[in-house]
């Protein structure tokens, strides 16, 4: 369970998050939607302690992570997997080594078991015969799939996605959307996806949260958001469709 309470964050003099409150439903897909440059990545990075707020609390399963030492923070982070915007695969390692990395770091499994898990995860995200390829040899969509395989290697309870479909062509976008939904169904993990793509949000989200000027201005199911009469929400959707 993730709960953000009155999170404020500024860079230099620019206030990016402004007393933001948000609760994420466990075992569901929540999409946080907002404009480009609106602080979505900053918000997501707060949830896993990559960025610390100027004030406010970030509660993960009852623990406030804003005042933990490295060691305790690293324990909490083991509940998470994260897929970065450009996948952030280690480019000095093969795809297989990338997926194996968290397993080698945090488990004592035999090499054979790890190889098996790596193959399973790569299959799960729809990749074949890429284990020995370098990340630079993959297309953008394939890199995102590999990044997802690495993110779920340790079967985390929470998976964070930073704009998983941005920069992909429409066909690839649809297939990644499907992959996210299918993976969540199978793993029953809590998924938090940030996006500026309103159409794809409607198809994958159980809940949509709208980020505007540093605050969450609306939360609801896709149907609630779509049929909202709030003029602010309507304008927000119209702006995003542009």
């Amino acid at each position, binding site marked *: 369970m993730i709960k953000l309470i009155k999170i404020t964050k500024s860079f230099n003099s620019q206030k990016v998050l402004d007393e933001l409150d948000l609760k994420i439903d466990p075992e569901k897909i929540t999409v946080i939607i907002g404009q480009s440059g609106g602080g979505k990545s900053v918000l997501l990075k707060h949830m896993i302690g990559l960025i610390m707020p100027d004030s406010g609390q970030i509660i993960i399963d009852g623990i406030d992570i804003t005042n933990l030492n490295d060691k305790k923070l690293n324990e909490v982070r083991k509940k998470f997997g994260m897929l970065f915007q450009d996948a952030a695969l280690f480019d000095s390692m093969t795809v297989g080594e990338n997926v194996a990395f968290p397993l080698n*770091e945090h488990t004592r499994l035999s090499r054979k078991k790890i190889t098996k898990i790596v193959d399973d995860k790569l299959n799960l995200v729809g990749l074949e015969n890429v284990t020995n390829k370098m990340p630079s040899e993959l297309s953008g969509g394939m890199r995102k799939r590999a990044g997802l395989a690495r993110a779920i290697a340790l079967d985390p309870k929470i998976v964070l996605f930073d704009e998983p479909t941005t920069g992909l062509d429409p066909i690839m976008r649809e297939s990644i959307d499907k992959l996210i939904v299918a993976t969540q169904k199978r793993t029953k993990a809590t998924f938090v996806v940030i996006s500026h793509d309103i159409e794809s949000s409607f198809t994958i989200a159980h809940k949509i949260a709208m980020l505007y000027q540093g605050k969450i201005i609306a939360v609801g199911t896709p149907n609630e958001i779509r049929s909202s009469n709030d003029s602010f929400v309507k304008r927000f959707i119209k702006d995003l469709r542009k």
Partner: protein
Amino acid sequence: MTRFLEFAGRPFVFFIEECGSILLLLLSTISWMFRPPFRFRVIFKQMEFVGVNSVGVVLITGAFTGMVLALQTYHGFRMFGGEGLVGATVALSMTRELGPVFTALMVTGRVGSAMAAELGTMKVTEQIDALNTMSVSPIQYLVMPRIIAAILMLPVLTIISDFVGIVGGYFVGVNLLKINSGIFMAKIIDIVELDDIFNGLVKAAFFGLILSLVGCYKGIYTIGGAEGVGRATTQSVVLSSILIFISDYFLTAVMF
């Protein structure tokens, strides 16, 4: 006048601030050094990169430094009949000063810059964030092995440089300029002490710390995409070189 001081003072203040941040990175690296896991494989890989792959450059620069030293001092010393001291001068200069400093400068260009570029690329492509999300400390996984490798390998490279420098000096002095080889060697053994060599190696280890620490610092604090990586790389070479010269003076003042 105050405007002028402000203008002139700003880079200086910035330099001091930057040295402070670098020192903080060093402290944090030391604190990670004693926590498991101990990544020997990563350290060995870095030792290969820093050390083994730099041997070629060090051989060439070391040999030619010794050769040109012999040539220069020969012409000076001949005026008062001191040709016999050429060997000792070359050996003393190489071990105390030129071996460690030139090696460090070459390795800064080859390795320090590569560290800044590699870690800088990892920073701007969020690979360093990814390490953090996987509960792996970038300081422990990336910075510490590079620093340990550089501290260990710089003295080794310096010994090689000292050695080929003296061999180069011998070749020019004895083979080309016809200095008596017995005198050439005897004076070296007479004048150069083990301390000269040892202190030179201490310098080298310290320079290794500087160039790797600065390279890593510039890398992990890179901002601004590919352009930022280029900037970090250049700055790491400039700053390391400056710090090597400054610390060389103070180390020399303290040790010799």
